[in-house]
């Protein structure tokens, strides 16, 4: 089935939209269970307080903030990739652009929840808005993330509009009435007139540019939360671009894994080919090289400067976190470089495996940015218990992490049950658009 025939594509995807296989139902139940498990851990944390986490007075941030950075990172990567692919109108983007859009919005819905888990008094969360100070990077982050969520929703809606209209107008689609109504409502009288096309194209172009810009700004703001403090390992001028590069790098890897999963589930071998994996793999390679360069530059200057606390931090990284540091900053950079760099290894399976390594490495990278720094205070901590000085994630934190991953999987599953994972409208000839 050719990719440039939207009706044929819709016909192909219609059974998946109409019914869910037994395996599909089992998968959804599994994801829901993960989410419920996360809710149980959340209730435990709310009822018993933050004592159930590994966070203490000294190390005040842990796995939650790492998850926050990670999910926000892959969200911005999705925005950057989908926005760039849209603006460049590259032909090969068509089958993967929806996945990038989904990645943006779904991870953006999950990421901020983790920052709320770090807050001890959620009942006073609204004070952040009422008494928020513009000078505080936390306030910048609240403003930036909320602006970003709205922008990404708008961009996703613009991208989905024509598909909603197609789903509304497809007579053979046997879905529940509420879904038909929903498609009709979301399609807002789209009739594919030249005027509508022109307006939609203009809005989508603008929003594509905006999501790219916002992604860079928001992730830089997130980096500044760390870098404007004087903590060893955080106070760095390159943290903004370093975070942006790391975000896009990890997001690209997640996108590759998503492509691989959807390709297997929906048997999209004819639509998502080796070419797509290689192209995105090359993007990952370039980003990996940049990430490696930034990481090396960051640690070299700290090591060479030999400032007391930086030296202490580096000695912790090369002692207690030696293997994690090695995996994160060496394997995480070299594996994709080797896999995508060597033509013999440039296969779908190897590129996906390299992407998995990158995902794990980049998660650990964020952990190594957050935790060892907090374990390196300026004032010496004396006569303190080990748990106060060193951080170890508890089951509550790990279960909530798994709950987040379960939520992402569930959102993707529901998303691809509502609209085809391959955008119907994008496969139409772009030249039709004025």
């Amino acid at each position, binding site marked *: 089935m050719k990719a440039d025939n939207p009706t044929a594509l819709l016909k192909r995807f219609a059974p998946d939209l109409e019914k869910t296989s037994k395996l599909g139902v089992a998968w959804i139940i599994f994801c829901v269970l993960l989410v419920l498990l996360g809710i149980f851990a959340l209730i435990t944390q709310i009822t018993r307080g933050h004592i159930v986490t590994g966070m203490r007075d000294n190390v005040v941030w842990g796995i939650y903030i790492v998850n926050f950075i990670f999910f926000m990172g892959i969200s911005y990567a999705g925005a950057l990739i989908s926005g760039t692919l849209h603006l460049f109108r590259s032909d090969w983007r068509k089958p993967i652009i929806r996945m990038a859009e989904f990645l943006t919005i779904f991870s953006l819905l999950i990421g901020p929840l983790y920052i709320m888990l770090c807050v001890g008094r959620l009942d006073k969360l609204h004070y952040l808005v009422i008494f928020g100070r513009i*000078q505080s990077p936390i306030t910048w982050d609240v403003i930036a993330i909320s602006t970003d969520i709205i922008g990404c929703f708008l961009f996703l809606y613009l991208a989905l509009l024509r598909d909603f209209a197609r789903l509304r107008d497809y007579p053979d689609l046997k879905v529940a009435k509420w879904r038909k109504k929903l498609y009709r409502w979301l399609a807002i009288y789209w009739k594919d007139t030249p005027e509508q096309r022109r307006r939609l194209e203009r809005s989508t172009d603008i929003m594509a540019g905006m999501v790219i810009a916002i992604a860079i700004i928001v992730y830089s703001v997130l980096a500044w939360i760390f870098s404007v403090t004087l903590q060893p390992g955080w106070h760095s001028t390159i943290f903004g671009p370093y975070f942006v590069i790391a975000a896009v790098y990890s997001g690209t890897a997640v996108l590759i894994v998503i492509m691989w999963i959807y390709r297997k589930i929906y048997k999209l071998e004819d639509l998502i080919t080796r070419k797509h994996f290689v192209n995105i793999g090359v993007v990952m390679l370039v980003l990996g090289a940049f990430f490696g360069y930034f990481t090396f530059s960051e640690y070299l200057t700290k090591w060479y400067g030999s400032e007391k606390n930086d030296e202490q931090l580096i000695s912790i990284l090369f002692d207690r976190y030696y293997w994690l540091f090695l995996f994160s900053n060496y394997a995480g950079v070299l594996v994709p470089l080797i896999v995508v760099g060597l033509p013999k290894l440039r296969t779908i399976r190897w590129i996906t495996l390299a992407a998995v390594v990158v995902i794990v490495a980049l998660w650990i990278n964020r952990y190594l940015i957050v935790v060892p720094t907090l374990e390196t205070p300026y004032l010496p901590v004396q006569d303190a218990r080990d748990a106060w000085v060193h951080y170890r994630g508890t089951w509550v934190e790990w279960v909530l992490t798994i709950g987040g991953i379960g939520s992402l999987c569930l959102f993707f599953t529901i998303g691809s049950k509502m609209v085809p994972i391959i955008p119907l409208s994008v496969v139409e000839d772009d030249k039709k658009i004025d």
Partner: protein
Amino acid sequence: MKKLLKYFALFLLLSNIPGNNLLAQEEMIEPAILLEYKNVMNYGKEVTAKIYFRDDEGFHFLPDLAIQFYSIGEEEERLLGEVLTDADGIAQFVISNDYKLPKDPDGFFTIRAVFEGNNLYAYYEDEFSFKDIVLEMDLNEIDSVRTISLLAYERDSLDNKIAVEEADVYIQVPRMFTNLTVSEEYLEAGELEYEFTVKISGDSSGKIGLIAFIPEHELYGNVEIRSHANWGVPFHAHLRETFGRQLWTPVAPLWMIITLIILLAGVWGHYIYSIIQLSLIGKAGKKMLNNK
């Protein structure tokens, strides 16, 4: 030969297993104690013991070790107390001025610091002997000249005052991190008069601390007396009444607010434009539907 090789391989294997005690010869580490003494007239004798050992990697100061301090007399050995070393390997013990230490016929008292040893570190002890001294300091303004008068003497067995023959004396003023030496003087026949003409910042009323310090005297060790007087230059911090717009003030710096407004207006302006376009798309479709 085969057997020999086998035993040799086994030896190599066993000797390389981490934590293997079969062949490893456990050796006790021999520490050392750096003993320091300062007789502060204001409260007593400070005895500081710093325990450490040295290897190829440098000095290692040993925390949480018990150091015992003894006073050694002619016929008796009196335990004064026991102190645990801190994170820097330091154990400090203060002997009050009221406490009478046993002395030898020449008037010397001896303090010994002892580390009993444990399964890791070997026994070590060190000691010193000094004589008691009395150092008195008077602060007077003689003919409008600020003068520090020092009197240093020791007492014999009959409680007679015997003037200290000679000693170096540093006149110091305590600052934030260390004591600032403002003059190095020489005390003769137990007396010294020093005219304090130094201009140095004090607190808001000009109050400063004053120290007379005899460093490393062969008979008396380090000796110190502290006092204070309003001889400094009064310091008044000239704080601005209003801070304006700063990071720490309730109102943010203007540039920050302007940047934020421009950014938000730019972004939200585009959002609104896109939403308007969406609404026009809907209207155009509805109009078309109605026309049909």
